[in-house]
């Protein structure tokens, strides 16, 4: 094999040692939160048929999916989204199930992003999906779980933006526009493009009172009360009214969680960006320019798989969470280390292996190795391995404390006694 220096595809990475431990730690924290709210874990296949994703409205663009071709010539897609396969599972396996389904996942997502952007082509997402419940309490729970995750990760300076896609839809329904114009309008509002929005509306025959309302939309973000008051004045049909009431209901429920202080509103979110049909949420951490948390209500997605389940969920980009924690220097409490390296010569091997087994039973990380007169090598290597103590097993146990740089000799009984004593001290502290 020719071993080229160009061995890495863009947008993927190795994760090992401390970095891996840290990722695992975050994943554990998040999984425990999901579990505490009663969400059961699920894993769907890493790849499914292209048709599954291609047939659905509002999924990411086709060119962003990473594709494979199987031996029968059918096109497969590496999981580009977590919600669709979970919804597919819920719809096909629990078609007639009227009961509520609460699912959680931590999984890898693959995207064929443009090269040279620094975007990951494989990243980890953790999230929950709640099927069969269309109450605002369900939306609020989803948002609360998201906020809880950010809190437990140690963030303080963050907020979650809430929107309601039906509000915008209600307004756009009033305007007599063709499909292409509607799409354009969605995009202008989505991007808060005030300048072009004005120009676009001037060239349509929408009534001037309706135009005024559209001008206001991109400004409808910020403190919940302010946004609600402004938005109330724009309501011209039942759809818009319902949307605002729903948003307010969810917000009031979040007050009972004591999470309302993390909430801001943005009514500029529109349906065009996905399969969402109601509440939408996006989470931001201060000084980090990318969304770390996103989700919302998607009542129509399971219909595309022949079931009819209202649903709501969110996903957390774990790679981004780790990036933010690095930025804020919050990576603590993880270490890869060895407590004891037990070195022996052949005639003491039995004793050394017994000793190491006893130590492992007590919860220590123990490595063993035979040695000759090359103790120096092991001492040097212990810095790299992050080894705390080396034990040379002879008639007596010679314990070299690498951190303190001292050497003590024990017989076995003394050694265990000392160990017990230190454990008591440690437990008191």
């Amino acid at each position, binding site marked *: 094999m020719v071993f080229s220096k160009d061995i890495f595809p863009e947008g993927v990475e190795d994760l090992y040692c401390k970095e891996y431990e840290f990722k695992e730690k975050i994943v554990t924290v998040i999984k425990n939160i999901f579990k505490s709210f009663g969400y059961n874990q699920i894993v769907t296949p890493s790849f499914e048929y292209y048709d599954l994703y291609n047939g659905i409205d509002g999924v990411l663009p086709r060119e962003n999916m990473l594709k494979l071709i199987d031996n029968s010539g059918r096109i497969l897609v590496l999981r580009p989204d977590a919600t669709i396969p979970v919804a597919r599972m819920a719809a096909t396996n629990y078609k007639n199930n009227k009961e509520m389904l609460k699912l959680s996942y931590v999984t890898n997502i693959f995207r064929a992003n443009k090269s040279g*952007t620094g975007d990951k082509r494989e990243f980890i997402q953790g999230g929950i999906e709640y099927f069969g419940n269309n109450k605002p309490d369900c939306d609020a729970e989803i948002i609360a779980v998201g906020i809880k995750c950010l809190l437990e990760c140690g963030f303080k300076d963050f907020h979650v933006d809430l929107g309601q896609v039906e509000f915008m839809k209600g307004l756009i329904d009033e305007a007599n526009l063709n499909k292409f114009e509607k799409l354009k309008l969605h995009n202008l509002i989505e991007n*808060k493009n*005030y*300048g*072009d929005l004005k120009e676009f509306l001037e060239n349509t025959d929408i009534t001037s009172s309706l135009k005024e309302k559209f001008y206001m939309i991109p400004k409808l973000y910020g403190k919940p009360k302010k946004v609600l008051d402004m938005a109330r004045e724009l309501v011209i049909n039942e759809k818009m009214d319902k949307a605002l009431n729903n948003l307010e209901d969810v917000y009031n429920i979040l007050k009972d969680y004591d999470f309302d202080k993390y909430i801001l509103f943005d009514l500029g979110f529109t349906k065009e960006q996905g399969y969402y049909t109601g509440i939408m949420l996006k989470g931001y951490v201060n*000084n980090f*320019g*990318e969304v770390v948390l996103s989700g919302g209500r998607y009542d129509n997605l399971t219909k595309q798989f022949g079931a009819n389940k209202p649903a709501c969920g969110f996903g957390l980009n774990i790679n981004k969470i780790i990036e933010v924690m690095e930025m804020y220097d919050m990576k603590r409490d993880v270490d890869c280390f060895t407590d004891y390296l037990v070195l022996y010569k052949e005639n003491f091997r039995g004793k050394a292996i017994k000793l190491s087994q006893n130590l492992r039973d007590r919860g220590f990380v123990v490595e063993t190795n035979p040695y000759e007169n090359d103790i120096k090598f092991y001492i040097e290597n212990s810095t790299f391995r992050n080894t705390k103590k080396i034990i040379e097993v002879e008639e007596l146990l010679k314990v070299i404390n690498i951190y303190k740089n001292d050497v003590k000799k024990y017989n076995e009984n003394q050694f265990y006694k000392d160990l017990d004593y230190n454990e008591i001290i440690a437990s008191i502290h």
Partner: protein
Amino acid sequence: MDAVKIALAKGRLADDAITLLGKIGINFNDYSKKSRKLIFKDDCEKIKLVFVKSSDIPVYVEKGAVDIGIVGKDVLLENEADVYEILNLNVGKCKICVAGFKNYERIHSRKLIIASKYPNIAKKYFNKKGIFNEVIKLNGSVELAPILGLSDVIVDIVETGTTLKENGLVVLEEIHDISARLVVNKVSLKTKNEEIEKIISGLERIV
């Protein structure tokens, strides 16, 4: 609170932008055209100005390395980015056009060959029109391409048309009006709302 970072590209647009910012009370007294510095602070030290290449502004803003960018619409069309395009500053106005020889007629039996500094815009425009095309990306002196027979037409920014005229070319079609835009990172708008909103509403009044 951390400083709000604004990205500009050196050149005439930067001067226009700095004048605009001056009008709303944000002054960069240590800035001069000749300075080679790339980072400036305003007099109250609340706003930082950084200079990057104009085509890089969208990505700096999208990734949140800076909060605000002031950049031509041409750059935004060419390098699509996920940002809020909040204001049309109405400066640096020009047009992006298809240009070629005055008597140019398309040969329908073969592909149209276009030379441009804006391959994405050119491709999109002709694809939309349903014209089978091939785009050659050039980095400068695009006017030379039809003259030397490299391409049939060019897609480029036209301000006064002088450069085209001097090279014997004319505007054949107009693609898009161009002017400077204020773009804002989608998260910064929320997290540094007060400061950014002040800049937006200030500029909104004077443009």
